[in-house]
């Protein structure tokens, strides 16, 4: 290895380290804020060393009763994931296996629902659900979140099904399965890893979502993301508590991200780029 290329290599490593530090510091700062004492949070010189405390976690999740919000977030995320999978996986299978008149247009239609701006869809939803007396229920948020999750499932799973050779379907039918039976007994197990990855992505998208939940369920059914801005007030925001909620809202997602990292590219580009 020549002298020059060793220096080059060192520079690259230093640059990568700097990028990682820049990417992570703001998040770590928030994690630190959640376990700092009140005075250390407000210090005008940054405090990096302190004795950690969990008072903010107790303060917000127990005294301010934020615990049910975690529950709401979880139920809504699981609900929309199940709904989108049950309805979306069979549809994806049809798109993967057959072309019929209008199938391209239909497929595009699914994409547009994924792209639809929440602010545009939520206005009429609010008025409709208001008339039906369904506002502030978990059900409406589950339905709203399926606007983007259903099409995510269809787009991602079409790719996964397309990777299974059609000969598998035929072999299953020769074994005496009906078309639907072959789908359930043979195709679904083969696609299971893809389904799992898609499920995790659905969960993440729903758990992180803000605008639909904020407009449609502001009180009893509000989720963790909706609860966070409520803690920020023009005067006297308890930043320790804000940070504590934010940490609880983000930790599971970071773990999940590591689980599905291999499929992230596909999931986030609607299958346009395979990771």
């Amino acid at each position, binding site marked *: 290895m020549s002298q020059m290329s060793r220096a080059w290599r060192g520079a690259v490593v230093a640059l990568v380290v700097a990028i990682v530090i820049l990417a992570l510091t703001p998040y770590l700062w928030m994690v630190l804020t959640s376990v700092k004492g009140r005075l250390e949070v407000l210090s005008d010189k940054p405090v990096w060393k302190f004795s950690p405390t969990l008072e903010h976690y107790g303060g917000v999740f127990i005294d301010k009763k934020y615990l049910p919000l975690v529950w709401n977030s979880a139920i809504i995320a699981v609900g929309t994931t199940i709904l989108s999978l049950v309805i979306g996986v069979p*549809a994806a299978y049809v798109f993967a296996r*057959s072309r019929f008149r209008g199938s391209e247009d239909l497929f595009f239609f699914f*994409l547009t629902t994924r792209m639809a*701006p929440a*602010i545009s869809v939520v206005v*009429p939803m609010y008025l409709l659900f208001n008339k039906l007396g369904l506002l502030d229920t978990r059900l409406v948020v589950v339905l709203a979140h399926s606007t983007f999750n259903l099409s995510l499932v269809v787009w991602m799973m079409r790719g996964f099904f397309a990777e299974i050779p059609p000969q598998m379907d*035929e072999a299953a039918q020769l074994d005496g399965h009906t078309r639907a039976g072959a789908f359930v007994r043979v195709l679904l197990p083969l696609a299971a890893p893809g389904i799992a990855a898609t499920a995790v992505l659905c969960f993440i998208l729903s*758990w992180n979502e803000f605008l639909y939940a904020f*407009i449609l369920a502001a009180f009893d059914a509000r989720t963790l993301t909706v609860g966070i801005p409520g803690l920020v007030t023009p005067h006297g925001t308890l930043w320790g508590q804000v940070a504590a909620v934010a940490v609880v809202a983000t930790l599971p997602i970071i773990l999940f991200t590591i689980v599905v990292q291999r499929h992230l590219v596909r999931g986030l580009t609607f299958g346009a*780029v395979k990771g």
Partner: protein
Amino acid sequence: MASPRTRSRALVLDRGVGPLFLTPALVLLALVVVGPFFYTIALSFTNLSYALPDHNGSFVGFDNYRRLVRSDPVFWDSFKTTLLFVGAAVAVEMLLGFGIALLLAGRLARQRFVLTLVLVPMMLAPVTIGLIGKLMLQGEFGLATYYLRQIGILGEQTAMLSHPKLALIAIVILDVWQWTPFVTLVLLAGMLGLPRGPFEAAIMDGASRARILWDITLPLLRPIIGLVLLLRSIDAFKEFDKVFVLTGGGPGTATELLSIYTYRVNFREWDLGYGAVCAFMVYLVVLILSSVFYKAISRRDRTAER
């Protein structure tokens, strides 16, 4: 690849389950997307308002559209702000993301671990991103404010979020922080999927790194770069959560994006007939961008099949 024969057989076999498998999805989408979409259009021709008396939704023809075109400079200001935000944020993300992808592409061994770390901002809830931004940029005790003042970029008394121009820069920085990882991730996937042949040939010919980058990497990556650019533009155009939490559109209307303005008209002023027009406009722009995206990938898929 399936032979023509198996393909046609699969088609015949499908007749039975196709409708059964597709209908539930279509019904659900009709309920949550198509219905609301047409309801928005219907609303846009009414004067419905929850705040004004006697505005119970009677038909007013094109009044709301006339108001949008002729007498609502705030809408067009927010449109400009949005374009400025999208342009600046996406441009910086593309450049940075491409650079970082190049840096990581050569170092396969450490890449997974490094990539996981770099990805963190992208997966956090946008609301928490907004809060982190607020915590960092606070005038009194923000970490970033402190260090920016130390190195003299910010004045002693300046707080980014209460200064109109700096607040706009702040939302761009925050978006760059969150989404550069996405650009990196996808471009890196693209780079690793490139054929090795052209690169080996160029190295044999003694081409410089810069030449290889310019003449081989960039042209080969062009389709993926285009897709990422479109996806990021669509998403940035819809941006709401982060900005809502970080600045709420302020100071004044300095960072009031189209989505924030639409929110204000509908859910603060309860001017729902006119609000429907604003919502419809946002929808329209996104619809146009999505169809460009779709055309791009279906064209690419067709060339791939040939």
